[in-house]
């Protein structure tokens, strides 16, 4: 493995750059070359920032040559979902309408944080319009294709972010997650994706979808890379009104700690229904590897998902109401009528959903008194085909093909719990993720379990090379 290759982990790149075994410029140039060769077929990127990336890499090389510390991610190429502000670039949020906006005048907090850590931004990534979807079948910018099978979706809404990492175009990316938009594409593309606790990572400079439920977080192909990126991102930020005031709690140092003392359970009931056998078997494999046997029921999880749908539809529609009134024809046909329907939901139903959220949070808190980490499938099935029919049959029941992808992720983002989607090793023809969930601000427990699983070869994210 060369640090110039697409399979190089972020931290090996940073180590080699810091030791001057390779220049940041050469690493970034190699990443840009991979993007140039492969993105025409995958359609992950909506902007490639070649000149600024090479300039930034040269600045890092000069810092290191002068004996300076360029940061824990020195020279690591990364890319971000195009709803993060990037100075000098128009923030599209997957839309045609925002194309008319002026370029952002500063980076989103999360982008600035990774840059401060030495990472080099190489471009912006495709997504569902305004983050309203699980598929990245974007009508304006085209679908992002799954590197494991280009006839299939990458998942969404952070589809470009997951596919770019899976294909080895970059070792690190950022996405956002309101109902599963980091974890679903991580599962379908076979990479690690972290949705941190609500308020753990600043959303300043990010186009919000449904502010009550919006989170941002990283994707990577190794647990260590994911942890180091999370450590660079986490912490208070007064520019995001929901960002937690508690200080950062770094996780990279816990990876060798093992899982001794952690009580690990398997989510039952809602989380064991309406999934294909392969998704449930992936959870069982992980449970066996961890010695977990206890089945745990989270009361009313199915209603939590319904409440999340109502909050998302109402808040998302409100955010775009003026444009829905004035220029509905410029919306993606895949989102337009869903936004309109959300705009018509009576306020009482929305408020009931917010009250249910408070109730559900307390019930789940009670359950987590007796368990530290819970396992569930991330998605109920692997990646559907691009343009697939609107419904499918799962366990004998007809379900909506696209919205059902979030059936196991929505109940957790609804109450802001941290979750990592881990890619099961040797899943068969297509990747599948197993979701690890913990109580608020207990990301460290998730990282300890994920590190153990990766070390034991139970989960793995090999890079998907170009097909001949």
């Amino acid at each position, binding site marked *: 493995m060369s640090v110039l290759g697409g399979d190089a982990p972020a931290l090996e790149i940073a180590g080699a750059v810091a030791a001057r075994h390779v220049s940041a410029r050469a690493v970034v140039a190699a990443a840009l070359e991979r993007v140039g060769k492969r993105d025409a077929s995958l359609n992950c990127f909506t902007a490639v920032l070649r000149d600024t990336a090479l300039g930034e890499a040269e600045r890092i090389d000069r810092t290191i040559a002068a004996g300076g510390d360029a940061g824990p991610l020195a020279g690591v190429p990364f890319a971000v979902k195009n709803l993060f502000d990037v100075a000098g670039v128009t923030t599209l949020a997957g839309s045609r309408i925002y194309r008319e906006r002026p370029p952002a005048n500063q980076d989103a907090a999360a982008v600035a944080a990774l840059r401060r850590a030495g990472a080099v931004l190489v471009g912006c990534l495709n997504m569902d319009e305004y983050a309203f979807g699980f598929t990245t079948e974007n009508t304006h910018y085209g679908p992002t294709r799954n590197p494991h099978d280009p006839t299939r979706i990458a998942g969404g809404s952070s589809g470009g972010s997951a596919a770019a990492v899976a294909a080895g175009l970059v070792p690190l990316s950022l996405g956002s997650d309101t109902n599963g938009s980091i974890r679903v594409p991580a599962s379908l593309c076979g990479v690690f994706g972290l949705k941190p606790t609500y308020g753990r990572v600043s959303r300043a400079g990010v186009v919000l979808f449904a502010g009550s439920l919006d989170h941002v977080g990283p994707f990577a192909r190794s647990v260590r890379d994911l942890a180091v990126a999370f450590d660079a991102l986490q912490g208070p930020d007064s520019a995001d009104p929901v960002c937690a005031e508690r200080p950062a709690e770094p996780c990279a140092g816990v990876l060798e700690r093992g899982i001794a003392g952690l009580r690990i359970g398997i989510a039952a009931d809602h989380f064991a229904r309406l999934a294909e056998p392969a998704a449930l078997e992936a959870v069982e494999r992980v449970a066996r590897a961890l010695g977990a046997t206890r089945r745990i029921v989270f009361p009313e999880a199915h209603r939590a998902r319904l409440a999340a749908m*109502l909050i998302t539809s109402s808040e998302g529609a409100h955010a775009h109401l003026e444009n829905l009134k004035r220029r509905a024809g410029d919306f993606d046909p895949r989102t337009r009528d869903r936004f*309109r*329907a959300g705009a018509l939901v009576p306020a009482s139903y929305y408020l009931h959903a*917010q009250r249910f959220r408070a*109730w559900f949070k307390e019930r789940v808190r009670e359950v987590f008194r007796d368990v530290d980490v819970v396992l569930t499938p991330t998605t109920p099935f692997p990646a559907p085909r691009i343009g697939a029919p609107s419904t499918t049959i799962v366990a004998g029941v007809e379900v909506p093909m696209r919205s059902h992808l979030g059936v196991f992720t929505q109940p957790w983002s609804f109450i802001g719990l941290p979750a990592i989607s881990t890619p099961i090793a040797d899943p068969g023809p297509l990747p599948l993720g197993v979701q690890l969930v913990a109580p608020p601000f207990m990301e460290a427990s998730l990282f300890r379990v994920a590190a153990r699983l990766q070390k034991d070869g139970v989960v793995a994210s090999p890079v998907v090379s170009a097909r001949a």
Partner: protein
Amino acid sequence: MSEADVERLAALLGLPIEPESRAAVAEMLAGLLTAARMLAEFPLPDDAEPAPIFRP
């Protein structure tokens, strides 16, 4: 949920919806209202306040 219902509700908001889209919006709104009714069936205690926090 009929197309006429959608037309009336949208008019209250000042949201124009062209006739050819009303059936699709009606179907999606019906789905959301079904979800809302399933949620409303669950009795919440009076002290369950809406979740968002406002810090003055």
